[in-house]
């Protein structure tokens, strides 16, 4: 008799476990954020209580990120500030050839809170030299 019960396979009811697992998967799938190209982990944005997420997303913004050591990140690549000017000039020529004036472009600046403000102003100056006028300084929401 004992032998019989050992050889018998015990069937666990997996239904609740699978339910919960699917719920977890759905939860993480909804919350996942793939737009990491524009958000470098190196940048620790300064916080501001007035920083509210925009009502509608910007149309094709130029995102420039400035790290604490003064290097800049554009399109997912790291550049020294001099090389950034060449890259932005290339971008300007590309956009102009597609009849998109640089004066209509919006530059989003994500600078580290410990970056030097002189570097931020240098980057803005480079963009102004290339004809860009609209700038947005990005901050993370505090509280």
């Amino acid at each position: 008799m004992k032998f019989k019960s050992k050889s018998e396979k015990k069937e666990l009811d997996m239904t609740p476990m699978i339910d919960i697992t699917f719920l977890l998967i759905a939860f993480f799938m909804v919350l996942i954020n793939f737009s990491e190209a524009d958000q470098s982990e190196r940048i620790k944005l300064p916080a501001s209580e007035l920083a509210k997420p925009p009502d509608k997303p910007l149309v094709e913004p130029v995102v420039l990120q400035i790290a604490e050591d003064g290097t800049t990140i554009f399109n997912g690549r790291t550049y020294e500030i001099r090389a950034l000017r060449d890259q932005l000039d290339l971008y300007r020529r590309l956009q102009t050839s597609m009849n998109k004036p640089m004066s209509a472009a919006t530059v989003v600046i994500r600078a580290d809170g410990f970056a030097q403000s002189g570097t931020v102003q240098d980057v803005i100056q480079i963009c102004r030299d290339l004809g860009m006028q609209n700038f947005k300084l990005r901050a993370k929401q505090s509280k």
Partner: protein
Amino acid sequence: MKRNRSQHKRIALDMTSMIDVVFLLLVFFVMTFKIVIPEGDFSIKMPPAAPSQPLDVDPPEPIRIRMRANEDGTLAGMYYGDDPLGTSFRELRGRVLREVTRRGGPDKADIDIELAPADNLHYGHVMEAITAVTGQIQNGNVYRICDQVKFAPRASTIPD
């Protein structure tokens, strides 16, 4: 007899492979999960360096705010025009609010604020100053003070 038997017998599916895949998916999503803190923007208007034609009327005098830094990049002091303000952003906000009110209130006054931070000042302090002059939160409501913030012209330090 045969029919009866097959109706009562529960069909047991082999779930092992499905659970394997489901767990793999779960692990993938858990690993790539990142908490996203909401981010907001402060607009800064920087028109081209040289205006194409001279303006007929002089634009109103901007409020000039100078920010000095210690050697390590922390804030040493602020100046409203030529008046020293210390390091209090509250005081800065109060002065700007008074000036905006004097010129007709936040909706009517056409005032530019020109920030001139020291080159080695940490950018976080600049953001604090921009926050202070842009508006304030009272009882959960946002009150705008001045939207037109820009950086003062300065000599470039980009190496050629």
